[in-house]
């Protein structure tokens, strides 16, 4: 049933099924493809390439992980709005799309961490703005995406801007990275603020018209989401740990230039994350 090589799959990352992992797979799951919904967002997380194939570092990790479990992978591209209802409806076994792990979200779903993230700020090449700490954002318009961790950071920092007697951060939440980037390009927003992966890719596409003007790093995770109490969550955790252990994980993060955020242990529902 599973084709030898799915469209967009990287042969260099192909995994053999790991007998120890395969043994853990419950009987009612084995043999069926593992379905993952993807909110196709900004590259290089998960996007369609020139051939229309779904690719990205999250896809690579999930494909390798399911291969280790001896399962097929079925990708279901969608938008953010259906991810969670779809999980709850068991339409999908898992969902991904640069989903940050937060305490609030863990009440609704289970998440396995795959990477720690950091964020970059982009601006026009002629922009005088430099971002060293979040204080530098006070009184400035930043464009980001809805539900992004950046929105949370900005909101939490408003009180500090107020305490310092500065104007609040004007954070615009767009539907997607493109809306945010376009707002910066039309000078609606001073800064474009998103995950480093997305911003780096955008800078590369902008042909020198934009530059990176700062970064913000925290220790929270980006992960894959599963329905609350899903028996597949610990399995997926084990499979990703297996990839970390056998070096495939390193190959993937290197391939996409994400070494900075690489993790040593794949956590299930990590609690050491921001609220």
């Amino acid at each position: 049933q599973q084709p030898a090589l799915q469209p967009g799959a990287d042969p260099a990352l192909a995994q053999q099924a790991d007998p120890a992992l395969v043994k853990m797979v419950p009987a009612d799951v084995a043999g069926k493809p593992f379905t993952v919904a993807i909110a196709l967002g900004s590259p290089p997380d998960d996007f369609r390439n020139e051939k229309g194939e779904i690719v990205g570092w999250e896809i690579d990790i999930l494909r390798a992980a399911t291969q280790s479990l001896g399962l097929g992978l079925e990708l279901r591209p969608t938008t953010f709005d259906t991810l969670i209802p779809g999980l709850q409806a068991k339409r999908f076994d898992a969902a991904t799309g640069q989903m940050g792990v937060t305490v609030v979200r863990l009440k609704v779903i289970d998440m396995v961490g795959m990477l720690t993230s950091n964020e970059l700020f982009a601006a026009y090449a002629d922009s005088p703005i430099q971002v060293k700490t979040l204080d530098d954002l006070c009184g400035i318009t930043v464009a980001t995406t809805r539900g992004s961790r950046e929105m949370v950071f900005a909101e939490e920092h408003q009180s500090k801007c107020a305490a310092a007697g500065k104007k609040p951060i004007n954070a615009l939440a767009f539907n997607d990275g493109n809306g945010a980037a376009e707002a910066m390009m039309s000078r609606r927003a001073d800064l474009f603020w998103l995950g480093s992966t997305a911003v780096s890719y955008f800078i590369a596409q902008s042909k020198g018209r934009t530059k990176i003007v700062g970064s913000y790093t925290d220790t929270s995770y980006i992960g894959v989401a599963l329905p609350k109490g899903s028996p597949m969550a610990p399995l997926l955790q084990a499979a990703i740990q297996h990839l970390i252990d056998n070096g495939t994980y390193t190959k993937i993060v290197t391939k996409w230039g994400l070494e900075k955020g690489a993790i040593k242990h794949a956590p299930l529902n990590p609690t050491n994350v921001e609220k």
Partner: protein
Amino acid sequence: MQVIPLRRPWTWAASVLVVLIAAGVAWSVATNPAFGWPVVAEYLFHEQILAGLIRTLELTVTAMLLGLVLGTALAIMRLSDNKLLSTLSWLYIWFFRSVPVLVQLIFWYNFGALYAHITLAIPWGPVLYSASTNSVITPLTAALAGLGLAQAAYTAEVIRAGILSVPSGQTRAAKALGMGPATIFIRIVFPQAMRVIIPPVGNEVISMVKGTSLVSVIAMADLLYTAQLIYARTYETIPLLIVASLWYLAVVSILSIAQHALERHYGRGA
């Protein structure tokens, strides 16, 4: 001799069945935990949701007013004997019905990327006015332009059909009384056209209430987008969509009542 009208026994049976089914569905909806009623209750009157609702209403009212006024003008132009006016109106309707509102919103919002300055000048002459595009086109302007200009194109078609439905004898009678074109339109033709216009315009207004959520592409938070922003953070998608839907149900109910009242008002004398 007693006369008994046609009885439809199945009507009663069906009525009972429908009520039973409705009760069943209501029960099932109320008790199904997947709908997350506690979360719905928590957010129904949440400050952000109410702010989003107000933004929705603001945008609907202003964009619809723009659409109605401009749409009426376009309909009159379209039906005018003047070839220039009717061609212009045709072109406008064609263009603004064609280009998706989403594209128009993105276009107006990001006009600054295309033209950094807006300049009014006499060709080969002095500059009369010049300003940065973003200062002229605020996000609200962009939203109203995107929604209102497109709405005008749709409304124009509806109003055109309404005007055509008024018998020409009415215009002749009004002309014979010495009324000018504006009076004839406002006092005679339009009130009669309203009968045909109201139901489709009711549709357009109700569509617009929900259509305002397109402004999310320019980071404006209407009711639906506010709900989306909240569940983007909390992942409680279904309860928040229910919150938004309940508000939409309330607004549309009020609008339906208004539509009914208007239909009655303009139906008088018929």
